[in-house]
């Protein structure tokens, strides 16, 4: 690390500031006595001396440094107010070998974007944050900053900052250094030669950390804004050194870079075969090959509602039916209840089959089949079962009210008891699947579909439990039991 100070414009700056509109191309837009100019120079000198101009991406804030990209001979991006740490996160995660600088002022970092800086610090993003604290809003014309001192007069605290109304100055270094992830936090002042030399060292140390991928470094610079604080350069320095440092003591708040291992991010993989092996499932060999169901019942939408308690496998039962649809080449949709209702203990799903277009995936009206695995389901969904539709219910958990379902085909079986008997209550849903198969065979399927039904259903169950052979066996047993034990209850009265 070079400590030798070279005279003239640092090599980290452009020779001519072509990006700056207007006639002035040699000088910066900052006011006389402003700390930004000094800090810019320290950074430009450091990135040149460290040999990293090609590695640096500068994320510039909203505030007086919004035009930082006029000056620095590196890649740069101008960010929304306070969002630079989030943009910088996107940059560093995309290209982990880059050295990312998030350059921010006090309003940007400690007010509108405070959450972003805290979260980026807490994630330990590999970036360097240069935080300019001048206790006032510069670009918008001298309003109160989160770091404005108690009693300090600004455009929006004309009587002086009243801490009971507006709180106290926010101490950023003190907060950030409490986190476990950051590696380096220091507060400097851009005042005396001695302080500027300390700031120069801090700039280089922070950048070195980013070069070494050690994680999150933040350097705060107490800085002058003579125009908005209405002071001359001498008074400005005195204000910083006597008043600001009282609230914002200088010094190193955290330095554990030496003990940290470099961050290693995964290499992005672009191999097409790897993506396919991740996304494309293993093909399950079917005894039926490409067999398509031929029963006319599937010519138009066949709407099934399945309902019960959460944990009874209601959604899985619907999912097995959806797999059946996928395997047997008809259109199928599966729609679960979701959100707080699901988490509240009841669950239902809609499954719609059709050989042609499926409109609504929600079986909200004109249901062809209702499968109920608890009592509330009967009360809630019987009204949407169309006349002549089929009700299948678990008679171990549901007692059908007297006179209910008189317009429907009604089937029942003690699915939960049967599953319990088989040794796994969780298989109650596949007992119901067996019952559904029996109902389908009884009422709706043509001979070819009937002949292939068991094989098709069992293949669907096997796909559902593709990685769990034992569970698949129990559930196939449950399916067979359900199909055998189903009891016919009644036909439509009309």
């Amino acid at each position, binding site marked *: 690390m070079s400590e030798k100070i070279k005279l003239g414009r640092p090599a980290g700056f452009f020779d001519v500031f072509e990006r700056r509109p207007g006639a002035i191309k040699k000088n910066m837009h900052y006011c006389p006595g402003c700390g930004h100019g000094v800090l810019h120079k320290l950074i430009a000198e450091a990135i040149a001396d460290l040999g990293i101009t090609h590695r640096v991406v500068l994320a510039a804030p909203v505030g007086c440094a*919004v035009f930082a990209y006029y000056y620095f001979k590196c890649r740069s991006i101008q960010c*929304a107010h306070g969002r630079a740490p989030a943009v910088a996160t996107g940059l560093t995660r995309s290209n982990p070998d880059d050295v990312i600088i998030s350059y921010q002022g006090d309003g940007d970092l400690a007010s509108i974007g405070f959450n972003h800086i805290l979260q980026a610090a807490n994630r330990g993003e590999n970036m360097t944050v240069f935080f300019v604290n001048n206790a006032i809003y510069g670009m918008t014309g001298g309003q109160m900053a989160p770091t404005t001192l108690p009693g300090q007069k600004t455009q929006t605290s004309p009587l002086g900052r009243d801490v009971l109304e507006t709180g106290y100055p926010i101490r950023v270094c003190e907060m950030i250094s409490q986190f476990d992830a950051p590696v380096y936090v220091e507060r400097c002042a851009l005042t005396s030669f001695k302080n500027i030399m300390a700031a120069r060292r801090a700039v280089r140390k922070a950048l070195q950390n980013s070069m070494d991928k050690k994680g999150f470094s933040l350097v705060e610079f107490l800085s002058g804004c003579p125009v908005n604080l209405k002071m001359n350069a001498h008074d400005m320095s005195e204000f910083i050194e006597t008043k600001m440092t009282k609230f914002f003591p200088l010094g190193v708040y955290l330095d554990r870079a030496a003990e940290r291992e470099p961050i290693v991010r995964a290499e*992005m993989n672009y191999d097409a075969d790897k993506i396919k092996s991740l*996304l494309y*499932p293993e*093909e399950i060999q079917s005894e039926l090959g490409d067999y398509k169901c031929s029963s006319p019942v599937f010519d138009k939408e066949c709407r099934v509602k399945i309902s019960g308690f959460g944990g009874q496998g209601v959604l899985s039962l619907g999912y097995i039916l959806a797999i059946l649809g*996928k395997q047997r080449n008809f259109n199928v949709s599966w729609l679960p209840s*979701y959100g707080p209702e699901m988490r509240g203990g009841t669950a239902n799903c809609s499954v719609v089959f059709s050989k042609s277009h499926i409109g609504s995936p929600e079986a909200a009206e004109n249901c062809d089949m209702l499968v109920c695995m608890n009592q509330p389901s009967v009360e809630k969904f019987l009204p949407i079962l169309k006349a002549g539709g089929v009700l299948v219910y678990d008679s171990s958990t549901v007692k059908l009210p007297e006179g209910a379902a008189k317009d429907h085909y009604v089937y029942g079986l003690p699915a939960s008891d049967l599953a319990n008997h088989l040794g796994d209550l969780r298989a109650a849903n596949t007992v119901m699947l067996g019952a559904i198969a029996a109902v389908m065979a009884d009422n709706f399927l043509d001979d070819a579909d009937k002949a292939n039904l068991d094989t098709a259903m069992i293949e669907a169950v096997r796909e559902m439990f593709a990685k769990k052979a034992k569970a698949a066996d129990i559930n196939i047993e449950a399916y067979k039991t359900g199909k055998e034990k189903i009891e016919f209850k009644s036909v439509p009265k009309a």
Partner: protein
Amino acid sequence: MNRTNRVLLKGNEAAVYGALLAGCECYFGYPITPASEIAHASARLFPAMGRVFIQAECEIASINMVMGASAAGKRVMTASSGLGISLKQEGVSYIATAELPCVIVDVMRGGPGLGNISPEQADYNQVVKGGGHGGYRCIVLSPGSVQEMCDLTMLAFDLADKYRTPVYVLTDGMIGQMMEKLELPEPRPRRMPPAWSLDRNVSADNWISSIYMDPVDLEETNRRLNRKYDEIREKEQLVEEFMMDDAEYAFVAYGIASRMARSAVDELRKQGVKIGLVRPKTLFPFPENALRKAVKNGVKQFFSVEMSNGQMIDDVRLAIECARPVALINRMGGNVPTVEEIVNRTMDVIKGGK
């Protein structure tokens, strides 16, 4: 071992599959029902390919992380729903102005306010019309099935790159949550970092900004953006027409509402009503050509079928320059119109001559 591209997926998952097949390299997002499965699947699948997944601290952070990654030369995606999209709008305006490509999936839920988590389509205005501050537009694709959640997400990445603009996949809680079978397309080759990006291999000093202090410069930027939007209007309209050849009436509906509208076409045709469906697959650009053609071919009445307070209907009227009456058939608050409702309301209008 043989693998199959025929799968059953939720719409939300299909968007993630499409993103990865399109070569998406980074995902940044914040959990929100009913879009969360996009984050879940991304958290599982992106790291498996060495890609980036971050659960951001908020919606604003996630869209700004998107901006950073896009600027860095990566294909990048985020997702949210309604109120989360509102929070992202600041960042989208920056991204659109800086002309960075990205893909945003909006799985619409009930609003306004906190609303509910049931499906709605009332983000139309905030997504299709720009949404954030300033005069920008985003390309907006509207999938009508789980297959299209995958396919249109892939297309979204291509359009985002082609026009250097944010592209929305605008869908709803029902398509996001429902599962259908789909055929996964082949993975695309890697999209290399573009010449304008902040990738160090393409440039030593590229810069990306959306600030133009000189009004003359900013006006020219606006004009440049709007020339681009005109080109998009001219070249990128996508639409599916159903039973439109002899139609005297036409539904206009997108996303989940279009599926009920299509069932309603079947039902009304049985009753002898010559009705068809124009289903926009792009909402910006709005398929004006298809609607003007419908007018020319004899459609005398349009119906805008929406799950909102009537937002797309304005674009239908503008597209046909109010040459024909447009009736609104809508549900709100997370209710999905039934086929029966659509049929009845249509017949009311036809019989009433309104």
